[in-house]
């Protein structure tokens, strides 16, 4: 039955995609894609033959490591006769790629094919994520949301609920504020031999797992959503200089510092990926991270948790009195601006095919539906049962804010990674000192450029596809 369903969906996709380009239309075109081994790519790579059957265009997807890929894209886009016509793009890169002119402007193509690609059904922030100066430079192939994961089975245990209420004076539930988040982290931090949900612990249990590593800017990734949830901004709108040393940034750094005590002892080395491992093994009560990893919490082949407990999902906490400003990210496909017109046409047909709503539904049905960006898929009752976090992802995008997209994104990630890591390790006296150091370093680099250019870099006009 399962296979029959898959066949039916595949047939539907083929029929729909038949409208993308007529059979044999691109017989003379060969496309190569510069990509990584991300789910948005690996779920598509084995079936590119279907696109060739539909359109005649041959597609080859080359997968490279995430570190260094953006440099490869920039170098590739500098060639007059590029080897790659399609590019995998992480949304914070649009600043660098936009300034270098590496990517083709997709605005007019999207407007032209709005009905075909079900533009109205796509979560708007996922499109905005890919804009530079209001122009769409890449099309979402996978959408991700920053949200919190927690141990539902522990939160609902009567003993734990009663003990929490007695200690903190309010009900144990997924944290809505960072103060609550810290309380919960403290409450669930237990030593081996202590009792947790009626069982004696064989090893230590942690209240939270947060990434504090400076490697790959992991700590910066965890810092940004907290800072944004306190109302913080990346840049000063008057000068275009670093504003991540203000009150909101300070509050975020202090939240992270308070959480240190409730983290695993190797917290300073926890990268985003190893951090999620604590949640996946059921060794922590809560952890906030990108939704691309959330799917593991329901898969016993990849995680211990489904066999020992149950995960729950909720929006990321927020600063007191602030609306939930979930941070989003888009993993997307773009077209090399140096490709020929014919290649660009075929590349756009491929993007439409590979990111279509029917294709996304097919992926969801086949089990790789973790990263979705269509409202109708995230709200599908059947799929919500399969992916219990879909509703959270949908709800939180209402008030979402895009990630940092500045051309100096990599510098920010690195500099703040080092300074915040040093503060968490106790090498820097205060959060203010750490943040001031980081902003000073960033500003030293930015001040080389005229103010009007800096202000242009931080401008985020509404995507023109919506006009």
């Amino acid at each position, binding site marked *: 039955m399962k296979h029959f369903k898959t066949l039916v969906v595949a047939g539907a996709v083929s029929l729909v995609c038949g409208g993308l380009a007529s059979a044999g239309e691109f017989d003379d075109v060969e496309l*190569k894609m510069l990509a*990584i*081994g*991300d*789910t*948005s*790519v*690996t779920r598509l790579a084995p079936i590119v033959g279907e696109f060739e059957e539909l359109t005649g265009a041959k597609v*080859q997807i*080359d*997968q*490279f*490591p*995430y*570190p*260094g890929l953006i*440099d*490869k894209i920039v*170098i590739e886009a*500098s*060639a007059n*006769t590029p*080897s*790659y016509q399609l590019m995998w793009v*992480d949304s914070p890169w649009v600043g660098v790629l936009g300034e270098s002119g590496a990517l083709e402007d997709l605005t007019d193509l999207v407007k032209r094919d709005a009905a075909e690609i079900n533009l109205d059904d796509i979560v708007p922030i996922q499109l905005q994520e890919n804009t530079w100066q209001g122009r769409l430079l890449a099309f979402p192939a*996978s959408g*991700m949301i920053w949200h919190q994961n927690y141990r539902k089975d522990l939160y609902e245990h009567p003993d734990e609920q009663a003990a929490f209420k007695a200690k903190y004076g309010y009900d144990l539930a997924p944290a809505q504020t960072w103060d609550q988040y810290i309380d919960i982290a403290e409450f669930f931090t237990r030593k081996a031999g202590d009792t947790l949900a009626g069982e004696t612990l064989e*090893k230590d249990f942690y209240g939270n797992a947060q990434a504090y590593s400076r490697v790959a800017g992991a700590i910066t990734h965890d810092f940004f959503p907290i800072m944004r949830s306190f109302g913080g901004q990346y840049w000063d709108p008057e000068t275009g200089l670093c504003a991540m040393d203000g009150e909101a940034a300070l509050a975020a750094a202090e939240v992270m510092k308070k959480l240190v005590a409730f983290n*695993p002892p*190797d917290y300073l080395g926890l*990268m985003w*990926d*190893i951090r999620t*491992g604590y949640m*996946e*093994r059921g060794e922590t009560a809560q952890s906030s991270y*990108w939704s*691309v*990893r959330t799917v593991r919490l329901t898969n*016993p*082949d*990849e*995680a*211990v948790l489904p066999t020992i407990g149950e995960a729950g999902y909720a929006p990321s906490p927020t600063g007191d009195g602030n609306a939930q400003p979930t941070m989003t990210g888009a*993993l997307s496909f773009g077209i090399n601006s140096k490709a020929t017109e014919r290649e660009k046409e075929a590349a756009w047909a491929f993007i439409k095919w590979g990111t279509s709503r029917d294709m996304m539904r097919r992926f969801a049905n086949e089990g790789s539906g*973790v*990263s979705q960006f269509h409202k109708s898929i995230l709200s599908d009752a059947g799929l919500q049962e399969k992916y219990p976090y879909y509703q959270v992802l949908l709800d939180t995008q209402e008030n979402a804010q895009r990630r940092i997209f500045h051309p100096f994104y990599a510098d920010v990630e690195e500099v703040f990674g080092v300074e915040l890591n040093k503060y968490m390790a106790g090498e820097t006296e205060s959060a203010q000192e750490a943040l001031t150091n980081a902003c000073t370093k960033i500003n030293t680099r930015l001040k080389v450029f005229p103010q009007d250019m800096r202000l242009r870099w931080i401008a985020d006009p509404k995507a023109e596809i919506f006009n």
Partner: protein
Amino acid sequence: MNRPNRRQAVLVYLLLAVVLIVFLTPIYIIASSSVKPTPIMFQKPPAMVFTPTFEHYTQLFATRPFAKFMLNSLIAALGSTVFSLTFGSLAAYAISRIRHKRMNDVAFWILSMRMFPPIAVVVPYYIIFKASGLLDTPLALIIIYSTANIPLTVWLMKGFFDEVPRALEEAAAIDGYGLLQIFWYVTLPLAAPGLAVSAVFCFIFSWNEFIFALMLTGSNAQTVTVAVMSFWSSDAVQWGRIMAGSFIILIPGVIFVLTCQRWLVRGLTMGSVK
């Protein structure tokens, strides 16, 4: 030479054990993680007893043409090693034998070629190989790696050639040998340990190189170092596959070094005893 007493022997063995632990622990972690089930990969304390799985190895070859990438690496590493030894030893011989006051400067100038930071030259290389149609070919990697390996070979081999007595070459010349014959039949065999040392350094550098392989290859000439790192994506780091790939990557280097070991030891100790 006095035999060490019992206490000295124990101390030596203890130190050796410490050194062995330091050097072998990373290899143990790689090997054990490559057969460890994903859910317990980073369990603390590390899971020492578990049912091994070869799924990471299976996935390594199932999801990417890893055998092809291994072959690419071998071609690039061996090709560059042979190329560098051939031309490097000839150049070193010339520098060693030609008497000129500026010859040491020439040798240093050649060595300085190795001091270029790779990232500074990657774009020019890209443009050159793109224009010449060599981009994404093993030949491009052989050429690049040789630009780093030849200077090293020249520097190493010059020292070995300097050690070979000229009287032997003069005797061969009297017997009627030409310059190339003297080099091939007399000098080079006596400097064989130097060749082994150079070969090991050239091979290991080429085998492990990452930046050029990342920037200048696609799926046609991708090497194992890039292929293994490509399991680091934005949504997950596939540590199991990375460990499996890393363990496989270790094997050719170990085989190559073991093969050269006999000459390597002689080469490293040559000149230390009169």
